[in-house]
């Protein structure tokens, strides 16, 4: 589903290259994890795939089911089925959670030439999805992420994912700042969405999230490239001996 080939990326206003020939393929139905030390380029990868300004792709490609996404605006990528769960979800006071989510969903449906959802149907959908993530009505009434705890913000990301039903989900350090209970809720939310038509790319520092969201493949990212790939046992290896050895071996 997602295919990244020899991707080279630098910051627009600096010469420093961050991704240095990254190659990665995530087939439909699979969950891939990317682990790596600080500064290895994990967040850059997620931002570049989602279309954030400020990065320049100097070489390589990224495609979603064969379609080049790098030239698309972020909203077009979203409508194509790409979703990024943010490491730091943004607070937007004065714009209600529900308004935001409905605007997003209907914009995507419209872009795909599908019928928009009535407010009644939308409300029903959100309530059902929110319940599973223990997101109460009060949170939905508030401004986007306003007054949310760290855990609530991450749950809200998963709620958005559940409502928007993307094909390709990228989770950028969704486990950071979560306690054990919150992590379980988030992981349950993600696991509930696993399906043969959907793929996940889970970016994380730590192995513990992968106890709950068990990946098919684990990749180690170091210095802008994938240096090792393997099964879930690779995450355990990282947990035991750190990144040091693997990185040196690259």
């Amino acid at each position, binding site marked *: 589903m997602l295919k990244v080939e020899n991707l080279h990326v630098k910051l627009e206003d600096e010469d420093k290259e961050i991704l240095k020939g990254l190659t990665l393929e995530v087939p439909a139905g699979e969950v891939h994890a990317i682990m790596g030390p600080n500064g290895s380029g994990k967040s850059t990868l997620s931002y570049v795939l989602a*279309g*954030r300004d400020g990065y320049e792709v100097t070489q390589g490609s990224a495609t979603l089911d064969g379609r080049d996404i790098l030239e698309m605006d972020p*909203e077009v*990528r979203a409508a194509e089925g790409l979703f990024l769960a943010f490491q730091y979800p943004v607070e937007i*006071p*004065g*714009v209600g959670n529900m308004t935001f989510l409905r605007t*997003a969903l209907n914009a995507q449906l419209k872009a795909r030439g599908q019928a928009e959802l009535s407010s009644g149907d939308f409300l029903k959908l959100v309530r059902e999805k929110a319940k599973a993530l223990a997101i109460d009505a009060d949170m939905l009434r508030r401004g986007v992420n306003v007054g949310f705890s760290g855990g609530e913000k991450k749950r809200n990301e998963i709620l958005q994912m559940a409502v928007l039903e993307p094909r390709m989900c990228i989770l950028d350090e969704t486990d950071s700042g979560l306690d054990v209970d919150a992590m379980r809720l988030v992981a349950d939310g993600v696991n509930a969405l696993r399906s043969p038509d959907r793929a996940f790319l889970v970016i994380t520092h730590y192995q513990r999230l992968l106890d709950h969201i068990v990946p098919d493949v684990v990749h180690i990212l170091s210095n802008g490239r994938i240096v090792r790939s393997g099964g879930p046992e690779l995450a355990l290896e990282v947990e035991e001996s750190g990144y040091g050895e693997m990185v040196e071996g690259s």
Partner: protein
Amino acid sequence: MADQALLSNDAVLVGAADPLPQDALTPAREAARERVETLGLPGRRDEYWRFTRPDAFLAPDAPAVPLPEGDGILFAEVDRLKLVFVDGRFDASASDALELDGVEIAPLSEAPWAASLYGSLEGRAHIPVPRPFAALNTAAAVEGLAIHVTGKVSRPIHILHRSSDGTADALWHHVIRVEPGAEATILETGIAGARQNAVIEADIAEGGRLHMIAAKRAGVPELSLGHLFARVAEGGTLKSFELALDGRVMRRETVVEMAGDDAVVHVAGASYGRDKGFHHDDTIFISHAGLRGESRQVFKKVLQGGATGVFQGKILVKPGAQKTDGYQISQALLLDDGSQFLAKPELEIHADDVKCSHGSTTGALDETALFYLRSRGVPRPRAVVLMVLSFLAAALEEIEDEALRTQVADRLDEALTEGLNDGGAA
């Protein structure tokens, strides 16, 4: 100060009837006339007019403007008492009957009680800075309403302005008295002529509550001066909000005396200008004289295409006004490089046990938040509108009535959607 000879020029007494009627307000008009002579007219070198040139209001004639189309849709669906003014003149035939429980409303000239308030709050408001255009208004106004709020008024009073003459100078002066424990909401929309000079004097007695919501989409190159002079007695509340979309040179002066203990005063405004001619000025002076007073000033301006926003806001805490809680924030969102925000926030505190804070910021759209919205599929133009609404939200929050607030927000949403999508900044 400008040439005193201007005082004898009819043009300065814009919108004045000729000759002025002799009635109960005559002594107040004459006293105001003397104030104008003493104060002189503002000149460009006056500190108080540093950010906004008074020229447009001193010129003999206003530049002609096209007439606006229709009344606009704002508050049209609200169950309200509609009072129509055409070019600043009350039009009884187009208005609802002046009957509403809890309030007595009459044209200024037909309410004998009005003489006790007319010019009195304005007359006290020239220290520390003179406000001669307001005194000019008092000296020359004939049109306006006397609104005597005696109980809890069930429906908002909607003052709807219309234009019939694109060269008209419109001048009006309302007086409002809110009796102890009484409460009213006054809405004001629409455009009057080419140039306006308006004064509202509001005296709020113990525990009285007055809500004022003004909203306009000029759509024509309007020049306007608006003045609100209010006094709030013990336990009284004043909440005022103004929405300004488009227009030319607009200056809103708000002067509030918090005379009694436990008074609450919130003044707020949201404006959106999208071209070089737009110049919107909020000039606020709130003085705390009582104990435990709470005042809030929340002003937000969205500027694009070379538009200018001005904020001059002051909180004065008088000796003895202990436990004052004063808050002031003025913020501008600049959607491009050519626009500017000029702010002069001031605090003057003569009591030692008070809490006062103020802040003023100028910024651009938050690119991270914009990306967040777009990454969820919200197209950029809509995402920009949502971000602007988010920026303005704190000002709109000052509208207490949720239904009215929603209507203002919806109107704003429409204007932003239209303006941002053909303005080029988005």
